[in-house]
């Protein structure tokens, strides 16, 4: 897929939560084709304490409105600075980067999309894509507390949504991997993105049940295009590969995780 460097205009900056903003971006030309699971590298302008671009997963592409959505968790100086942009501001973005999730070959497949924290972001775009392709996606979203479950309205439009919270303020209490739907329903494809311990638990479940599973990794990166070799993951047979180029999505069969 051809990569582009674009100056995109902010159409909306929605403060979803004290720690999250949703940026909606557009340009006059149609946005390039993007695939769920891919990411972008955002330049942080005029921030004295940051230097590199920030990799952000693609949350959603609204084709009708020609909008790219980025869900941004305010983690450090870079993302906090980025969250200050206003409607009409221009953001420089390199996109689309990485491989993206694979789509099940069989139309009968029952996909489960598991997201935790900001890891729910790519699941929205993937869910919409799967629905468009005739699948019936099920979402399992986890967060600390009810207020941390983001974009539920959007997810509900795309399929059945199950939730867990650590404090029990919404959905079932506990972690996503403790949710009863994992015992009551059959799935044959699992996609996951979130904190590493969560993804490892999901991968263990998938392996035990012999279900295909893809995880989206968030290793720290610099270039985003496979040039600097900073963001590597050590995988089976191949050794260290760039998460930005060979990933960020990997089938769990390729990973050396203890699962």
């Amino acid at each position, binding site marked *: 897929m051809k990569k582009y460097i674009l100056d995109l205009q902010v159409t909306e900056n929605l403060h979803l939560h004290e720690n999250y903003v949703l940026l909606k971006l557009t340009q006059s030309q149609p946005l390039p084709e993007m695939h769920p699971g891919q990411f972008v590298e955002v330049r942080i302008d005029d921030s004295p304490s940051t230097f590199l671009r920030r990799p952000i997963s693609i949350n959603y592409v609204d084709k009708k409105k020609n909008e790219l959505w980025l869900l941004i968790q305010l983690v450090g100086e870079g993302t906090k600075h980025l969250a200050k942009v206003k409607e009409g501001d221009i953001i420089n973005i390199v996109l689309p980067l990485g491989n993206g999730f694979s789509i099940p070959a069989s139309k009968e497949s029952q996909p489960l999309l598991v997201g935790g924290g900001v890891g729910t972001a790519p699941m929205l775009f993937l869910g919409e894509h799967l629905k468009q392709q005739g699948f019936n996606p099920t979402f399992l979203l986890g967060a600390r507390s009810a207020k941390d479950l983001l974009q539920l309205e959007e997810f509900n439009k795309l399929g059945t949504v199950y939730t867990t919270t650590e404090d029990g303020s919404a959905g079932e209490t506990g972690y996503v991997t403790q949710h009863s739907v994992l015992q009551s329903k059959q799935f044959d494809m699992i996609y996951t993105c979130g904190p590493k311990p969560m993804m490892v638990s999901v991968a263990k479940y998938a392996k035990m049940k012999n279900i295909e599973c893809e995880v989206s990794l968030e290793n720290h990166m610099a270039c985003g295009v496979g040039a600097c070799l900073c963001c*590597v993951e050590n995988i089976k047979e191949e050794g260290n590969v760039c998460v930005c180029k060979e990933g960020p999505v990997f089938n769990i069969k390729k990973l050396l995780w203890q699962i």
Partner: protein
Amino acid sequence: MADLRVKINTLELANPVMTASGTFGYGVEFSDFIDLERLGGIIVKGTTLNRREGNPYPRMAETPSGMLNAVGLQNKGVDYFIEHIYPDIKNIQTNMIVNVSGSDIESYVKTAEAINELDKIPAIELNISCPNVKQGGMAFGVSAKDASEVVSAVRKVYKKTLIVKLSPNVTDIAEIAKAVEDSGADSVSLINTLLGMAIDAERRRPVLSTITGGMSGAAVKPIALRMVWQVAKAVKIPVIGLGGIMNARDAIEFMLAGATAVQIGTANFIDPTVTIKVIDGINEYLDRHGFKSVTEIIGALEC
């Protein structure tokens, strides 16, 4: 339009702007963003005799106006390069230069010998300055005697343009530069990364798996500029300047300090089109100051 051509020994560059090893892959990673053939040259990823897995993750830490890396020369070895990568890059119409690294003199020599046979590789950059490998690498670049030994050995087998990349992690970089010049180097490039460190105070642990790493980016520019100036005064061979170049003005400063050409590294991560902007910016500067050739500004610093 001024004349942008420069020469490094017999190597003819369409303009003085090259890309630094380890920051631009094999060039093709950036072909969606720029016309690679506009570049003066591309120094491809460090290549060693045998495959190297590099260091464990994490390998990178952001710093104010810069970054640390601890990649550790990950590459698939010179045979893989010749069989699988060279065929894909040999028709790119610019100077494709291979950065060669080793862990002992023999491995440097064997790698250089193999690359000498490749028609479309007109030069190598001998890396005696990588701070991220335990054996060799920087060890050769921090002593004039060792630097001299490895360069002399490679010179015997390598017939084309031999550039030697110097480490800034030394007391007197000009002394090392003179030693490699006397041992047959056709050019020196500097600086490689500066040895640095990052700590995660919350976890009370180092950020990098190797504890220390190589620092690059805008923050290192004043140091690099000083070293280029010192080396350019000390040697007769052409100097290639690098270290924190983010724009055309930075590149021009290196040339005024005595560099015949420059390399752009970390800046490619922030703006993948930066190299083209630097070429255009140098041209604009030359026109504005009435210079007919870029060679007129090499070492033109008045002090």
